[in-house]
């Protein structure tokens, strides 16, 4: 039972991810009444869970390289720090992403534990934050012209186009939800992977390991977030922020799903490696920023008019402020948890192992 208490911060993070990020996938479809909310919520929940359990390992591995939180109380506080950052920044109407918050929180733990942060991993992660919306813009830009060309030569009746678009929004939405689950489960459950004491289960001859169980729990938390809270967000996305036609909405969701998938798929990475092609780093990215990139691509395809560059500037500032705030909250709250609540948040250092790792060079010079 105690484990569930410790996991609660991650589950809360999952819930808020479901509440907010599902709207990036199904927002326009539901907001424009092309897809019913319950259909969208059902499809999104199923595929988020599938994506998390089947393909969530890749991005989790990258976060693990950034900082391996080694005590469950520490993991609890890291996830809580990220959740608090997301909560407060959302309240202050600042652009925020779970992915950036969790990275900051992990770095905060590294600082508190006195462990070095893998700068190569951090640079890789930060570069994908910039790369992901740019890539999404490129995808939607190209897809826009492809769809336009198709519609010009494939003269579809308006009613039939409506039916195709509805089916497309559900199918592409399912793909988007799968990719979201695969890409973002690391944010929710990544810090618990090394410390959660789940045993492997054998279900009908299929091995269901501890990490998969953890991801299933996280996926279910996201699903609960989708069902309980995403409806309002979806209606806002569909009604207000940006006016998209159902066809452009389909393009936006597809390019978003492709980007999230690219940054999460181990299968794709293996395939690229096998063909001597450059690989895409497996990093949790922000689906909100990816979706803004996709919409920007559509704006550019329309000639670039009406793009509000201030919004883009705000997002870019979030790349810096979110991790810093999360790191600070994480550091301070870890201090409190350790010294006020008397919880071990960092594994005590084993003296002998340190001794063994001291290099001969150090020995020589004392």
């Amino acid at each position: 039972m105690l484990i569930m208490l410790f996991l609660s911060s991650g589950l809360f993070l999952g819930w808020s991810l479901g509440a907010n990020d599902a709207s990036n996938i199904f927002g326009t479809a539901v907001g424009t009444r092309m897809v019913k909310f319950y259909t969208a919520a059902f499809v999104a929940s199923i595929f988020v869970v599938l994506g998390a359990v089947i393909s969530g390992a890749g991005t989790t591995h990258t976060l693990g390289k950034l900082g391996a939180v080694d005590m469950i109380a520490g993991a609890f506080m890291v996830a809580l720090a990220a959740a608090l950052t997301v909560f407060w920044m959302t309240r202050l109407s600042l652009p925020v992403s779970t992915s950036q918050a969790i990275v900051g929180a992990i770095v905060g733990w590294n600082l508190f534990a006195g462990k070095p942060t893998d700068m190569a991993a951090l640079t890789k992660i930060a570069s994908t934050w910039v790369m992901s919306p740019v890539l999404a813009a490129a995808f939607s830009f190209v897809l826009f012209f492809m769809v336009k060309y198709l519609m010009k030569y494939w003269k579809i009746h308006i009613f039939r186009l409506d039916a195709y678009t509805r089916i497309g929004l559900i199918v592409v939405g399912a793909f988007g939800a799968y990719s979201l689950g695969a890409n973002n489960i690391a944010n929710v459950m990544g810090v618990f992977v090394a410390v959660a004491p789940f045993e492997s289960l054998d279900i009908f001859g299929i091995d269901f390991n501890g990490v998969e169980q953890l991801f299933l729990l996280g996926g279910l938390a996201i699903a609960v977030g989708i069902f309980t809270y995403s409806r309002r967000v979806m209606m806002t996305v569909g009604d207000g922020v940006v006016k998209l036609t159902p066809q452009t909405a389909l393009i936006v969701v597809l390019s978003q799903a492709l980007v999230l998938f690219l940054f999460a798929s181990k299968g794709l990475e293996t395939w690229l490696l096998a063909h001597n092609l450059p690989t895409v780093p497996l990093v949790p990215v922000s689906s909100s920023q990816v979706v803004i990139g996709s919409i920007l691509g559509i704006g550019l395809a329309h000639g670039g008019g009406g793009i509000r560059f201030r919004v883009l500037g705000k997002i870019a500032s979030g790349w810096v402020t979110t991790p810093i705030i999360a790191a600070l909250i994480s550091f301070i709250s870890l201090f409190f948890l350790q010294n006020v609540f008397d919880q071990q948040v960092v594994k005590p250092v084993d003296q002998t192992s340190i001794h063994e790792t001291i290099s001969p060079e150090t020995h020589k010079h004392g």
Partner: protein
Amino acid sequence: MIFKKTKNLELKMDAFLDKISEAGIVYRRGIKNYMKNTSDDFERHVEQIRQLEHEADELRKNIETQLYTQTLVPESRGDILALMETSDDVIDRATDTLVEFSIESPKIPEEFKDGFIELARTTVKATEEMVKAMRAFMRDPLNVRNYLHKVYHWEKESDRIAGELKREIFASDKLELSEKIHLRYFALHVDTLADRAEDVADRLAIYTIKRSI
């Protein structure tokens, strides 16, 4: 299942546009019959256009109900609804005009008959191009412009012919003022059909921009 419903709706929309197009032909022939004093044929056309108007009304209501109860084409259904109602005005106008001819039996002097026939022919051309533009809007929005300018052309042409006809009527010294006013009223009504087609074209011009992705 979803495609069966869609196909059914497409067929109904095509049938609705067929009714408008057919009403144009009946209208033109009805006026011609009236001018040629073939009253049996004329009354047959009046009956025929009434029937077409009724059928178009039924189809329109049916399509509108289906669009709203099944939440189809949520982005454009308001536009489609407005288009159907405005184009329904065209068929209503055509029916009313033929019925007015039937009720009021205006006496048309021989020298104005060709003018009326020509006016009816031109206004119907505007409605025919309007129907083509509507069909293009449904399937091939990039082509709508090709028809819209023709609607505007025939509408202007109708105005010109109606203007000349009215001028000649009032210049005539064989008619009483009451007869002149009666004839002007009919010239006006025959011409109104093209104005209604222009209303549809105006809407189409905007809705086509909205429909492009």
